[in-house]
């Protein structure tokens, strides 16, 4: 599906936004470069900052192609960055100790470029996936990128009501690292714990906002620790001890182990999160359900259902049928 449907869906939520940040992510948008990492970058100043990213990428692999992301001026959206995209192939021989050298090189490059704060911010880094975000109302952001020109099989969209960093393009959702993209509503009260944990394991938080850690935590648990998605979500929003105590013994044992091992990854505070990678979309809320999540499914034209989910997580394997999911901020 192209982006027009998701643009229309998100515009319904304008009442709950503030016009200071919105974004979209689409999977399957770069079929011609499906084997390359698509790096989306915000440049503050194209002449001054681009050479730094070019040099970093060339040091670690090959730039197959790069170009400005086409944008179209909108009266209500002030373009403060130049969005650029690279299609990049890392050289796996440069990270011989790694079991997933390409991912590791790209992830390290993202951290390095973003930490340097030299007027370049890589905000999307997966294969055949692209994040399109900016400060503004959802329709303006959609029109700025003309997202209807992109064909994707999974879309996430987000309308932001920022409190901490209004107008900061890097703070708009979705957040992405490699294959995983995240949209989030809420405030993560455990952010300090989560950030210190993730930063002790090689990630660096650079976006001035809490959602960023979710993308890194999912990357850590799923890609680096090899947990399946359900278990990763369970580590992030685990059952209460009281529930664990009531489980059958074997189940109790691994649930207990999961909470002990990933205590600093556990997220607290009110949140509703939807994350996606190339094959899957998953939604989950905080353990106390302080934020609601509404899931609408439209598997075939004849049946449809919408229900308020009381239990996290909600998870579906993408079968590439039309699927739209709204998230309320």
């Amino acid at each position, binding site marked *: 599906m192209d982006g027009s449907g998701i643009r229309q869906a998100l515009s319904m939520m304008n009442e709950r936004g503030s016009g200071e940040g919105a974004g979209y992510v689409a999977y399957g948008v770069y079929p011609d470069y499906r084997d390359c990492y698509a790096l989306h970058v915000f440049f503050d100043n194209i002449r001054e900052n681009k050479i730094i990213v070019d040099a970093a990428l060339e040091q670690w692999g090959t730039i197959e192609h790069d170009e400005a992301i086409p944008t179209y001026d909108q009266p209500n959206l002030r373009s403060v960055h130049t969005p650029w995209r690279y299609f990049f192939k890392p050289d796996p021989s440069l990270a011989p100790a790694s079991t997933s050298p390409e991912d590791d090189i790209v992830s390290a490059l993202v951290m390095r470029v973003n930490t340097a704060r030299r007027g370049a911010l890589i905000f999307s880094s997966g294969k055949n996936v692209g994040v399109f975000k900016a400060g503004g109302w959802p329709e303006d952001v959609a029109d700025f990128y003309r997202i209807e020109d992109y064909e994707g099989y999974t879309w996430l969209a987000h309308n932001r009501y920022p409190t901490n960093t209004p107008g900061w393009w890097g703070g708009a959702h979705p957040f992405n690292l490699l294959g995983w993209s995240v949209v989030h509503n809420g405030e993560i009260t455990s952010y*300090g714990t989560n950030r210190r944990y993730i*930063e002790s394991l090689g990630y660096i938080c650079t976006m001035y906002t809490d959602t960023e850690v979710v993308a890194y935590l999912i990357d850590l648990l799923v890609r680096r620790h090899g947990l399946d998605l359900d278990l990763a979500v369970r580590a992030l929003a685990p059952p*209460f*001890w009281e529930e664990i105590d009531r489980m059958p013994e074997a189940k109790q*044992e691994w649930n207990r182990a999961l909470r002990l091992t990933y205590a*600093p990854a556990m997220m607290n505070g009110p949140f509703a999160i939807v994350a996606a990678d190339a094959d899957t979309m998953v939604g989950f809320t905080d*353990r106390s359900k302080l934020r609601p999540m509404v899931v609408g499914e439209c598997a075939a034209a004849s049946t449809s259902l919408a229900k308020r989910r009381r239990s996290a997580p909600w998870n579906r394997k993408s079968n590439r049928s039309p699927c739209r999911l709204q998230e309320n901020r």
Partner: protein
Amino acid sequence: MTIGSLPPRYRISIDPVRCMECERCIENCSYGVFRRDGERILINSRNCTACHRCIACCPRDAISLEEQPCDYRSHPLWTREAREAIYNQARTGKIILAGMGNALDYPIIFDRLVLDACQVTSPSIDPLREPIELQTHIGKKPAKLDLRRRENGDVELLTPIAPNLRVETPIMIGHMSYGAISLNAQVAMARAAKEAGTFMGTGEGGLHSAIYPYQDRMIVQVASGRFGVNIDYLERGAAIEIKIGQGAKPGIGGHLPGEKVCEEVSRTRMIPQGSDAISPAPHHDIYSIEDLAQLVRALKEATEWKKPVFVKIAAVHNASAIAAGIARSPADAVVIDGFRGGTGAAPRVFRDHVGIPIEAAVASVDAKLRDQGIRNEISVIASGGIRGSADVAKAIALGADAVYIGTAALVAMGCRVCGNCYRGLCPWGIATQRPDLVERLNPDVASEQVANLIHAWTLELAELLGAAGINSIESLRGNRDRLRGYMLDESLMQVLDVRQVGA
């Protein structure tokens, strides 16, 4: 006369109109302040320690106590303490002994840290309506889990998990030995620990048979004197703690005077009655970090790897590097005892001048372990000067898993922090072995009070967490974003990794 008598520290007076001459003060004062002389009760204020026993038991509120009724000429450098220490040492030529914790007027960092609460952007949580989890697990954790999903969807845990202590609240009772404190005091606290779902340390005093009913709540200590240690002792405990040092006296050993070694103490410590129990400064089998790791492993082997082993160190300047070394051994937890930690007896110069505050020590230990990517693999227990639930919350936000309390538990049993524990005359029946004094402490009542205290702090912690929008204690651990420094200097805020108020 060269020095002459010094001004009395306290002056006790009895209001003759109120006094009914019941003589409870005479009976209760173990320091000999009061005596009957014909029609009058005479007072010797010089013996007073401000333990308040007389005031607490006077039925008519007739007794009043004045601190420093007659002071020296004031001087900012030559304080009363400085002058009196000199007079004392000029007379005796000896090291000055002192009890309780650090008595110098250092700024208290806890009191310059403020906690956070939610407004609007995230809702606060009402602990009466929503669960708030304070359950804490002390012990080794794996860095990552290997979980496999079977054909039928069941999950199989392939990573072995070391035994952890499950504590219902992050408040534990630290090590106070039988010998330093009375059996009644120890029984009371052990019972309270069981009641509150927490654990308590035996100290280096062995395990008296009266404590056996609570042994699954006891952390048995192996210290440099090895008093009371045999395989039976190790097997009875829920966990084992190797004591390297103590916050009140880093770098030195311990000394239980022979007068306190009564028959029961002698049996429990496995030393001759009336002999001084001297714990050497170092363990004579630990002269390096490698030696420590071997002892940890030896204790684990002896108890078939069923029990967590803790290592307690005093908070000294490079506590963080030492803790990182301990984390590399099979040890399950490192206990950091800050320079305000209590003691039955310590040389005053150590108590007041050696070591660093627990707040800074925990922050730097947590940061160092994180730098090395191993923070969650070992538990960190903070102790030394924890006075209330706010201190507990702040210690955890700075990076501790749990805290040990010591003095606070004694205060819950009546202790007035008079600091004369080393004299063995504690009129509250806590730091004494004199049978008539010990009898004054009723373990039934005292255990309820200690349990009440832990319960009350636990409730307050739940409220503080709820207000901060956090429903589980692990999300507060090391969450320094929820702390702000108030009137702390910039370099200290860097060590604590907290921002200032308003930032």
